[in-house]
């Protein structure tokens, strides 16, 4: 190790500002050495300190009857009855995936799974939320898509956790900065819930799992806190490689340790490795921790103390245990062929003290590391000029309605996701009641006959057009998806994928989006129990579309009644349900037409949408209706096509088009559902919300009579278009 102390320029290279560096010197009482500076720079990074988002996040509603654990722990948790909790969280791995999509996406899944079992829940499901550039024109986006999907499948399949749902969209602004978010759910006994606060002076700090190498040194944290420019090769440190086999053993081992009650506190090693896990455990427990880096099992012999402290090697956990349990804990680790080492001790000093053998190589107040990073206020400003250039037109203005429907059904944002999700195992663990494309939300059976429902959603284009209303729409869509299977929301997680928050218009997008999440979650009684923030998502041509991704978990009382989206039976009636007022603003159709984004979206009546959701949910639960599907991208006609394709049966529809047939057919808005069932049942549903019977199920064609015009297409034609993504995967 160099004897010379690092200087201001080193601090700046590590991402600190001059003022922050001076504050570090002040907190330390002298300039930090290499170990100390490395640790400060990581903990004071955007990724760990949330310095641009903390003030916003506190405005989110976090309490509700089902909430057992809110934000602040590795994952949030809600009560699902019978002494069980469901833990869930969403995480991003955007920048690592832009550099090496397979490993980036794989380790993203690995990371979110560790967050789940760190709190004592067995992971039961994964969902993915992906954004890439335009695959029809971008070779790079096709490559990123293919490799990211392969990486997610590789990790989730190999570890035996089903990937039950997700979403993917393609838009120009993600060309250079793709988004790869992964959400995971876990199930565990409520009385076994584990927290990460270190406790018990004199207790042993033990690391177990993979050995520590030079992976991602300065990786995610530095990467996640700086924009990825064009010639940023020097900001691309070693890529982390995931090992799902190691994680599988780590998971089984952790769950067994927890079941045996051998662990006092537990924390995964994620971004910023040992530094962030140990410091956060000490901070939450209001204690100090001594660590001897020489005791950490290494993959490469010659690592410096600071490298060991910041390494982001995957598949590692840190726990605090009582000294008497060390042998028992290590025996369980041995059984699972997981290496383990006692590397430190909980102290009363409230200091992080890093030793290399007998030599003290770093000493920092825990509070300074974790709590004293400056928090910045945003300077939001609504842009006066459009931020995003219009997409390239792909549908001719002269096209007819039928041609437009085919184009929509085959457009990358609407086409069947089967080529992606069939690379994922959706059924392992024998809980999956609704697989992808069977219903709007995935449904997972619980032991007592009830079931969990889960959905993940985002819509960057609509949020870009109107951050507040667009985000309302995203949260509402998530809840609508739950309603379609008969579930009510228990809790919500969110991932805020935005550009550089130091830019006023990005700050505005972020502020508006968080305000909408707060409003919608409050109205829906779906509190936020956790989440993640990913900022600085920009390419050379500017920020990504602002992309709040919402994950929602709900409950339905009877798993056997879980809803489906496909039309069910010949002769049944089809109804448009809910307060649906379509608009072409920022719609999929306007994108195909190459129109620029509008300045705003129509107003949203949250209460009316919520009431419609309650009505649909009730009808599904009562077994009143046989299918339910919410209207989203591509409007009502696209939704009808999806119901017909999913049920492999046609329909004859009459829609009163009014003045604008295009808007009636393809306009989008929250709050609309397509339901099918017996006429009497739909009439009954009409007592609870607005119901308009629009047609009947039957035949092998989709026929839509708009009065002046008609759309008539065979299911075969529609299916062929719907399979458009297959070509990307050959």
């Amino acid at each position: 190790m160099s004897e010379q102390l690092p200087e201001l320029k080193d601090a700046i290279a590590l991402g600190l500002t001059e003022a922050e560096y001076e504050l570090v010197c002040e907190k330390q009482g002298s300039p930090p050495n290499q170990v100390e500076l490395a640790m400060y720079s990581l903990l004071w990074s955007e990724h760990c300190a949330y310095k641009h988002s903390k003030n916003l996040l506190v405005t989110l509603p976090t309490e509700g009857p089902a909430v057992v654990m809110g934000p602040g722990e590795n994952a949030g948790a809600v009560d699902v009855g019978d002494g069980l909790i469901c833990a869930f969280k969403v995480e991003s791995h955007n920048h690592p995936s832009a550099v090496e999509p397979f490993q980036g996406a794989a380790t993203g899944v690995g990371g979110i799974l560790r967050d789940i079992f760190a709190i004592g829940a067995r992971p039961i499901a994964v969902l993915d939320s992906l954004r890439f550039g335009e695959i029809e024109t971008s070779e790079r986006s096709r490559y990123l898509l293919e490799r990211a999907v392969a990486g997610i499948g590789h990790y989730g399949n190999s570890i035996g956790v089903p990937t039950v749902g997700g979403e993917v969209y393609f838009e120009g602004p993600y060309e250079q900065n793709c988004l790869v978010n992964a959400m995971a759910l876990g199930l565990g006994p409520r009385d076994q819930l584990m927290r990460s606060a270190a406790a018990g002076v004199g207790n042993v700090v033990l690391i177990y799992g993979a050995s520590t190498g030079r992976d991602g040194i300065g990786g995610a944290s530095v990467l996640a806190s700086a924009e990825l420019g064009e010639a940023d090769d020097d900001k691309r440190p070693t890529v982390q490689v995931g090992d799902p086999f190691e994680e599988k053993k780590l998971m089984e081992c952790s769950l067994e340790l927890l079941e045996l009650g051998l662990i006092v506190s537990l924390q995964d090693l994620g971004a910023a490795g040992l530094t962030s896990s140990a410091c956060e455990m000490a901070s939450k427990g209001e204690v100090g921790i001594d660590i001897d880096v020489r005791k950490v099992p290494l993959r490469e012999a010659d690592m410096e103390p600071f490298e060991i402290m910041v390494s982001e090697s995957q598949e590692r956990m840190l726990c605090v245990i009582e000294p008497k349990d060390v042998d028992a804990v290590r025996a369980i680790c041995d059984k699972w062929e997981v290496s383990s080492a006692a590397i430190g001790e909980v102290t009363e000093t409230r200091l992080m003290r890093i030793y290399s053998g007998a030599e003290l190589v770093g000493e920092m107040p825990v509070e300074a590391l974790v709590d004293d990073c400056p928090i910045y206020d945003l300077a939001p400003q609504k842009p006066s000029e459009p931020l995003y250039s219009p997409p390239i037109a792909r549908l001719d203005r002269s096209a007819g309605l039928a041609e437009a429907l085919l184009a929509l059904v085959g457009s990358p944002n609407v086409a069947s996701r089967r080529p992606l999700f069939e690379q994922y195992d959706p059924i392992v663990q024998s809980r999956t009641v609704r697989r992808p494309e069977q219903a709007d939300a995935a449904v997972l059976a619980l032991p007592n006959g009830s079931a969990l429902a889960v959905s993940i959603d985002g819509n960057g284009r609509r949020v870009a057009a109107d951050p507040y209303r667009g985000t309302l729409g995203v949260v509402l869509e998530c809840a609508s998806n739950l309603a379609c299977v008969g579930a009510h929301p228990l809790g919500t997680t969110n991932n805020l994928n935005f550009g550089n928050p130091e830019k006023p218009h990005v700050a505005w997008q972020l502020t508006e989006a968080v305000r909408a999440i707060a409003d919608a979650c409050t109205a829906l009684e779906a509190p936020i129990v956790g989440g993640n923030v990913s900022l600085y998502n920009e390419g050379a041509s500017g920020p990504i579309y602002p992309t709040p991704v919402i994950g929602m978990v709900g409950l339905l009382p009877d798993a056997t009644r879980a809803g489906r989206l496909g039309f069910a039976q010949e002769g049944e009636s089809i109804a448009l349900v809910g307060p649906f007022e379509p608009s072409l603003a920022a719609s999929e159709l306007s994108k195909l037409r190459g129109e620029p984004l509008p300045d705003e979206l129509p107003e949203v009546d949250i209460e009316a949408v919520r009431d419609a959701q309650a009505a649909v949910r009730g009808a599904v639960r009562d077994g009143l209706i046989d299918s339910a599907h919410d209207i989203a991208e591509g409007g009502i006609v696209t939704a009808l096509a999806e119901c017909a394709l999913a049920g492999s049966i046609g329909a004859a529809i009459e829609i009163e088009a009014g003045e604008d047939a295009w808007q009636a057919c393809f306009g989008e808005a929250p709050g609309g559902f397509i339901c099918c069932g017996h006429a009497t049942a739909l009439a009954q549903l009409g007592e609870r919300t607005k119901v308009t019977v629009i047609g009947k199920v039957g035949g092998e064609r989709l026929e839509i009579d708009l009065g002046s015009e008609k759309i008539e297409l065979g299911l075969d034609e529609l299916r062929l278009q719907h399979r458009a993504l297959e070509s990307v995967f050959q």
Partner: protein
Amino acid sequence: MKTGILRFPGSCDEVDAQLAAALVGDTVLLWHGDRDLQDVDAVIVPGGFSYGDYLRAGAIARFSPVMESVIEFAGDGGLVLGICNGFQVLCEAGLLPGALLPNANRRFTFRQVELEVVEGDTKFTSACPPGELLSIPAKHGSGRFYADEATLNQLEEDGQVVVRYRPEQNFNGSLRDIAGVRNAAGNVFGLMPHPEHAVDALTGSTDGLRIFESIRSAVEGAHV
């Protein structure tokens, strides 16, 4: 009847197999490092990624201590069912003919497939009328059944091809659409699709239950 389900580090579908086997009898999980098969009547080598499936699917698992006992058990006529990774392990161990290569489509693929029961009078399919179609999920990255021509001919002649993918269902490129084979003695059977994931209408079909019922008949028939 008591069924033992092996558990390797990296097994994923062992609990699913246990749930399915529990519908027809008692079950116990057998740890890869133990040699004691605990007096089970039948053994299931389950799906998953034993030892990470690094190198080649099933290549490392076949050398585990528990597999030594399973090889002996099979030699004595004990019933052994290999599902997916279990099929791969049994082939690598030489208990079943052939090998499973990476899918022709180069991807891990999940699909609900239709299988035709070619041999309905085996210990594993006696509850299925011959020619019956089973709807069962398949999910794997290396499921392309391969054996040389002579072996394939001999397998077909001797009735060792037990289940076949229906036309258009063979996404992995298995030779002659073979989805599952038995050994010459008839007491070891392996298949790529997952019958244990088709035993409950709530989560899919119930067609896979027939395989487990057949095993029960074989065991209980032998006991009387």
